[in-house]
């Protein structure tokens, strides 16, 4: 009889499913990016939906895996949780970043790999913060709402501060957009590592 305890941890958090979702998302993003570019009147700038939705789905898969079914018992753990939480958040994020960067090759100046990487990092941070504040099960909701708003509202030029608040819709290399994404990641990761996913009463 073998019971590698780490595999128990991974299973209880649904991480095998989350990893499968990451691979599936990357494959779908790669296919969608290629298809959009191949359409007659479109070029590589048509990939904006891909660099928004791909990272959003990846962040959602990672965010929902932060849910723990045994919150009260987990609190009696001998070791502090923050190192395990950091690993749990950052290891799948690194994988998602790598996969999504590969999913949108070429034309890095407009909605290519840099935008995919930046959006994955920023949205994971937002999702981790949401898991801490509203619970892991619904952690995908705030970033989805945010993306919906900026997708509709952000202008295609960088005027009016849009490069800051609409960072996820920028084509790629702007430093301001990267700054906001990095801040989101740092704040969300720190908040999650410190507090853990919020326990919502009534959740199994």
């Amino acid at each position, binding site marked *: *009889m073998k*019971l590698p*305890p780490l595999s*128990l*941890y991974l*299973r*209880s958090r649904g991480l095998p499913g989350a990893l499968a979702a990451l691979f599936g998302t990357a494959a779908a993003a790669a296919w969608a990016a290629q298809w959009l570019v191949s359409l007659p009147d479109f070029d590589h700038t048509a990939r904006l939906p891909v660099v928004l939705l791909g990272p959003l789905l990846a962040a959602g898969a990672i965010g929902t895996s932060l849910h*723990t*079914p*045994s*919150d*009260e*018992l*987990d*609190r*009696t*753990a*001998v*070791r*502090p949780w923050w190192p395990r939480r950091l690993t749990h958040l950052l290891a799948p994020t690194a994988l998602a970043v790598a996969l999504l960067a590969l999913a949108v090759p070429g034309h890095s100046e407009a909605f290519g790999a840099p935008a995919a990487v930046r959006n994955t990092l920023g949205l994971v941070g937002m999702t981790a913060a949401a898991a801490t504040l509203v619970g892991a099960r619904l952690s995908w909701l705030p970033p989805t709402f945010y993306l919906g708003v900026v997708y509709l509202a952000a202008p295609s030029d960088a005027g009016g501060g849009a490069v800051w608040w609409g960072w996820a819709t920028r084509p790629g290399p702007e430093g301001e957009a990267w700054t906001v994404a990095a801040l989101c990641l740092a704040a969300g990761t720190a908040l999650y590592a410190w507090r853990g996913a919020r326990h919502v009463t009534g*959740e*199994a």
Partner: protein
Amino acid sequence: MNKPATVAVTGLTVRHRRTVALDALDLSLSRGVHGLLGPNGAGKTSLIRVLATVAAPASGRVELLGEDVASPRERTGIRRRLGYLPQEFGYYPAFTVREFVAYVAWLKEVPANRAPAAVERAVERVGLADRIDARMKTLSGGMVRRAGIAQAIVNEPELLLLDEPTAGLDPEQRVDFRALLRELGKEATVAVSTHLVEDVAAACTDVALIEAGRLAFRGTTAELAALGGESADPGDTTTNAIERGYTAALRAHRERSGSGAARAKEALR
């Protein structure tokens, strides 16, 4: 009662938002089985959660097994030697009983070479050996509770905290469980919060009665039974005597504390 105290609580105050769950409580426990009795909302669960180190008190000093829970390093040492059955505990439904208990053994840092045997022993002690490879989601309520007791004793704790452990057990399982409690109480400090005075009569050496966040009575089970006075009914049992003692101790405490809220409660009866 001259065994060294393994739990020493002084001036413990716990608040939930604006309500006071425990109000400057002093309590000390030593090896043996202790019953925590009290009406609903008296603060039993708040006390157990602080003793289990899952909730932090607003103020007061808590020393468990000779170490201070306020110090992170000492808390780590305490948690290794602590077992806790929450009133409501979540579990991953696809785990088998063996995996669920092994997961907690991992949290408690039971050494990996000893863990598989410790898991089997704990599950056997609660009488679930025949269901050890059944998934948690297929178990009945009483079996889930016994799996919960198994995870609490998997690290052979020196301090065992059980919040309503007999809820959902049938009479035969309760009898077995009380025997297990008495056995555990020989080596460890066991605190059991319960509503059932039969549990106290059968398994506990002494009782702490909590009412509205304060200690209303502290003494042996026999002393609590004696508080109820003699019954006119010759067919009276120990259980009835403890129930009368419980009621008498609560009334006496409410008169002593004399708070308006307590009187109002009494008047409603």
